[in-house]
């Protein structure tokens, strides 16, 4: 369960070119639900998601994760929480080029000092689940869009997070791949994970598996439809 209390995010605070991305957002999101953040570009979806996922700190306000306040935690603990709780999927996939798919999947877990053999096995199992284990040793730049997407999903899942955050995941995909992606999201939701997606793609938010749609406009919530 994630709670946001009066979250505000501004850039270049105090300077003449101050830009406020989020103007006081408050909401609570239930676990095991799929939520879509909808809105035009510039509405603050990405900024909001990055704060929820502990990638950035709000300028003011509080964020609570299962009752624990995380906004004032030092970086070290924030990173630990981020590692354990959140799995990210980026619009551009953001896989590390020049490196194999397998290594990309294992990367998030490298700093934990987990034994190499068990980590490798887990990564291979994930790649197997998403049916790209045969490309495990290929460099990611040689993968097709759909294959890269699945590698990105595996990477997001390697630390067994309870929340999946996806930022415009279908923006660079065709219909077939978009549908495949949402199928996978459905599966993960069935496994008990919280799904947070930022998207303005109807293929995403019109699905029945989406429990709630939050509309954002100019950094504010625009009503909260379902």
């Amino acid at each position: 369960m994630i709670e946001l209390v009066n979250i505000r995010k501004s850039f270049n605070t105090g300077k003449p070119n101050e830009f406020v991305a989020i103007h006081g957002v408050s909401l609570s999101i239930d676990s095991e639900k799929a939520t879509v953040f909808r809105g035009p570009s510039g509405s603050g979806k990405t900024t909001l998601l990055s704060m929820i996922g502990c990638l950035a700190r709000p300028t003011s306000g509080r964020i609570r994760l299962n009752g624990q306040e995380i906004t004032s935690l030092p970086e070290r603990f924030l990173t630990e929480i981020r590692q354990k709780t959140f799995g990210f999927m980026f619009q551009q996939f953001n896989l590390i080029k020049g490196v194999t798919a397998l290594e990309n999947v294992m990367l998030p877990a490298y700093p934990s000092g987990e034994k190499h053999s068990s980590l490798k096995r887990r990564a291979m199992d994930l790649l197997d689940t998403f049916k790209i284990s045969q490309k495990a040793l290929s460099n990611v730049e040689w993968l097709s869009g759909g294959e890269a997407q699945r590698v990105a999903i595996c990477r997001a899942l390697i630390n067994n997070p309870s929340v999946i955050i996806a930022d415009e995941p279908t923006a660079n995909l065709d219909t077939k791949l978009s549908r495949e992606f949402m199928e996978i999201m459905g599966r993960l939701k069935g496994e008990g994970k919280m799904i947070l997606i930022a998207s303005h793609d109807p293929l995403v938010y019109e699905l029945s598996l989406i429990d709630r749609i939050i509309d954002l406009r100019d950094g504010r919530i625009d009503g909260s439809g379902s």
Partner: protein
Amino acid sequence: MEKWIERQKHIIDFTVSSLLRRRGKNAALITVYAFVIFMLASVVFFVQAIKREASIILQDSPDLIIQRMSAGRHELIPVSYGDRIRSIRGISAVKSRLWGYYYDSVTGANYTLMVSQDPRVSAGRIVIGAGVARARIAFAGDTIEFRAYDGAIIDLEVKDTINSQSELVSSDLILVSGSDFRRLFRVPAGYATDLTAKVRNPKEQPMVALKVATLLPDTRQILKEEILRTYDAAFNWRGGMIIVILSGMLMAFIILAWDKASGLSSEERREIGILKAIGWETSDVLLLKFWEGMILSLSSLFSGILLAYAHVFFTSSFLFEPALKGWAVLYPRFKVAPFIDPFQLATLCFLAVVPYIVATIIPVWRTATVDPDSVMR
């Protein structure tokens, strides 16, 4: 502890993958860096080895040498001076030395001719150093022509060559008999090139030298300790060529570090953002850069030093030959015993690794501490 080791290993895994992405560039970097270290280490090894040998073998050079000076020129010394020197208390033996330089117009080489009591040397028969043998392609049984002071040609037969083990001191020597020497150079009887004296108590050497100076004001004295000091100070850092080599190396060093320290490319920045977004901490990113610097500098260091050792002690510093030979025709084959000064080697290792790593990490510091949401934009 195990976790810490595994963490390092994982990060090294990724560092190697990362370096392999730009195989060519990194290989070139390592090669250049290794070359810089190779040159520096070669110089260090070579100079240290020669200095050490000099300090050992020159212990057996004469205690005191007396030269006669006239109008600023080194002149022949009357052998009778020796009798007067012998009377000084503290001096146990005085010998006269007959030696000089012979310019061989055939080869353009300079030889040092010395009169010697060596049994192989007699009238008409000489013993030559290995360098002379090479320059003239002469061996035992061959004859070498010499031009005397009056233009006459004197044939001298090579009886033997000096053992090439001692080339460092004997390469250009030609040992002749006294009569042949005087015939060649018009040195009258009763005169010698200079005198050598044995001083009983080594601590008294300077004092004895002073006595000689007072007794024979037209002479110059050279002490054994001064000979040793000459070679201790030879090849010192202030020598012109050495400064040039060192400056060149320093420049190369700085250029390499500059490439790293001049900030990160946008691609590198983006990658660090990705790593942080997927869960890497600032310390992990810094470790990554640390190992990157370590891998590159250690590889260069090891190959540079090992190759330098092979270069100096297995191939007799063949790369230095043009510099050391200069305009000389004769050049000794350096077979010096390896000597490694651990302090200098440790300094070299430190200088090769630490600044490079520092230069690698510092530009990353700022980027690594930035919020990882940069990658979301």
